């Protein structure tokens, strides 16, 4: 059989599987319609976010080596929910956010210490800027809370130091004395008040030298000493960002999983009803038979992805910034999931058994891949295991081409992993199929 005839046979098998899928209304619904509803639901409900509180990883760029900055970063690292990854440059930190390795990047500016020093005289604390991953908004809320708490602790620590506080008071006295819009009588009142504070500080200095506790920090509970200026990653780029851009990748991957579930039973059905015997007794190779089925699954996966993408682009104004990269991501994702499909499809003997087994494995893959439980919430070893799930990599690849501005080089990792998963699945599945049909 020549190459063209071989391709025709492969295409004939693929077309048959697709036709059968489309005629099974329930399977077609769960393959093509359900993922759309899923993505829309999460788009509306969570704005693409969703997540529990747990250990979250952030990148920190420490440009100020002063004691306040040192204390801030040290305390940040001690926070139970936060894992600090120190990096040298803002670009590197932002790259980690883009890749999804960390939730956010925080920059401790060179003026951090000065910001604290001038807090009373200017009324404004230091500015801490950062970039956030918008797909993890729940975690961002937690991070903001923790940063404010830490900033307060740092400030309190600074002013519990009596010498530092006296230095602050001297600056305030000087500012009041020079202020033209304060009446002299009020300047006297301020002076008396500051003198009393000076007395307290002298007493505190004495208590500090005697090793006794001081109580100044506790009086500052309402301060917001650090101004957090955190912005979402995608907003660095041109074009709109909306919740559906964030929920779409998850919807797409659930759609891919629907395809896998629908197709995983086809081989077992063929085996059960005897059509596999007819396919295998035809002048085609076993690789062509399984290739035809893989092709059907691949085309179905591509269709699901692009129906979703185009629908979201038209209805919800999802901006397709990198169509070429998105094309690559969808091809790699479809390929990976077809590999998984092939592997699962050769394991079942009956259609029902295969479908049940496939659903179970896919659900586990979704779970460990972050489809149901955020990865950051998992123990460390489970986070490592999650890298084996195509769910994680497919979401990352699609996000990378949709709103997470990853460079071509950065996209190589998720694309490569997806291609690897697909190739391994197809190869093992093909070998197992060949062995099982060569009795």
């Amino acid at each position: 059989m020549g190459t063209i005839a071989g391709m025709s046979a492969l295409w004939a098998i693929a077309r048959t599987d697709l036709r059968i899928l489309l005629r099974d209304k329930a399977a077609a619904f769960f393959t093509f319609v359900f993922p759309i509803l899923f993505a829309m639901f999460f788009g509306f409900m969570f704005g693409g976010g969703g997540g529990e509180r747990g250990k979250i990883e952030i990148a920190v760029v420490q440009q100020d080596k002063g004691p306040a900055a040192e204390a801030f970063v040290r305390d940040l690292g001690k926070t139970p929910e936060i894992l600090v990854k120190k990096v040298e440059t803002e670009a590197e930190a932002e790259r980690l956010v883009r890749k999804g390795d960390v939730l956010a990047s925080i920059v401790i500016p060179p003026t951090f210490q000065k910001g604290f020093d001038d807090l009373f005289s200017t009324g404004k604390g230091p500015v801490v800027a950062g970039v956030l991953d918008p797909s993890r908004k729940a975690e961002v809320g937690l991070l903001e809370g923790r940063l404010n708490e830490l900033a307060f602790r740092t400030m309190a620590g600074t002013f519990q130091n009596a010498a530092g506080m006296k230095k602050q008071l001297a600056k305030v006295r000087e500012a009041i004395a020079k202020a033209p819009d304060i009446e002299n009588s009020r300047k006297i009142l301020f002076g008396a008040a500051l003198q009393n504070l000076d007395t307290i500080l002298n007493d505190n200095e004495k208590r500090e030298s005697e090793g006794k506790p001081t109580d100044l920090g506790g009086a500052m509970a309402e301060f917001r000493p650090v101004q957090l200026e955190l912005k979402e990653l995608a907003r660095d780029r041109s074009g709109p960002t909306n919740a559906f851009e964030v929920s779409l990748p998850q919807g797409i991957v659930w759609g891919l999983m629907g395809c896998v579930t629908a197709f995983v039973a086809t081989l077992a059905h063929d085996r059960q009803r005897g059509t596999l015997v007819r396919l295998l007794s035809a002048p085609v190779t076993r690789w062509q038979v399984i290739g035809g089925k893989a092709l059907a699954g691949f085309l179905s996966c591509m269709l699901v992805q692009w129906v979703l993408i185009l629908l979201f682009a038209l209805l919800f104004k999802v901006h397709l910034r990198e169509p070429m990269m998105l094309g690559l991501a969808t091809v790699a994702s479809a390929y990976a999931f077809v590999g998984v499909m092939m592997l699962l499809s050769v394991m079942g003997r009956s259609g029902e058994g295969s479908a049940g087994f496939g659903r179970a494995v896919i659900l586990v893959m979704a779970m460990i891949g972050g489809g149901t439980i955020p990865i950051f919430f998992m123990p460390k070893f489970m986070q490592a295991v999650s890298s084996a799930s195509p769910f994680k990599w497919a979401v990352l690849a699609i996000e990378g081409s949709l709103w997470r501005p990853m460079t071509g080089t950065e996209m190589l990792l998720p694309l490569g992993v997806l291609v690897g998963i697909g190739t391994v699945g197809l190869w093992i599945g093909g070998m197992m199929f060949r062995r099982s049909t060569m009795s």
Partner: protein
Amino acid sequence: MLRLTNLRKTYGELVAVDGVSLHVRRGEVFGLLGPNGAGKSTTIGMCVGLVRPDSGEVNVDGVGSPMRHEVRAHLGVAPQALAIYDDLTGFENLRLFGGLYGLRGSALEERVQRVLDLVGLLARGNDRAGGYSGGMKRRLNLAAALVHDPPLLLLDEPTAGVDPQSRNNILDTVRELSKAGRTVIYTTHYMEEAQRVCDRVGIIDKGRLLCVGTVDELVREHGGKSQLRIERGEKSERLETADPVREIARVLGDGGVTGVHIDRPDLESVFLTLTGRSLRD
């Protein structure tokens, strides 16, 4: 057309086929007759390249082993299980299977129409196979084996579980194929079918081919004697004879005979003689 040489296949401890050698001649309908589990389907599986023999070989029409996919282009197979897609129409099923054998375009359409007509399903060709009766599905299963007009057909229990009308259609179709010069291997456990359509029959049991020959040859060699029942009024007597015609003439000459019944040996008798069991055991 098809030569099997000392084929053997085991599954663990079970010997499914044990040293089967056979030569099926071009243009004949060869029946492989045996009870369920005798090794018929395994033998067919080896003939079409689905089952790899432990030893021995299968040679198709001098072109080689059916383990090579290009050799399988010479074969048409109707498996015992209904190997059709219920979700596809009769036409779609045949287009798919014809396409797998390299048929395209008008040649494919012409063959699809022709075989559907041959099995009496042309009028239902646009209906999904899932809506067919069991007999119609069997006929479509046969049509799928014929669509590429193969010179060698392997029909594994093609009438299993069908109504008399469909059975007659299938048996008539097999005879027509034989007249058209096709070689057919036909497995069955119905001796009536084997007697009706097969030029030669091989009896297989427990994986071993016990004998091969025309029905008459087998009956003559292994069927035993005919049984005569002679009725004389209220009385009847039974006689066993190798030459029933001569014996009837002799009995009629004696006079007083009111009825004669003759039970000739058949393939069932042959099987009983060879195995000590009935075909339907």
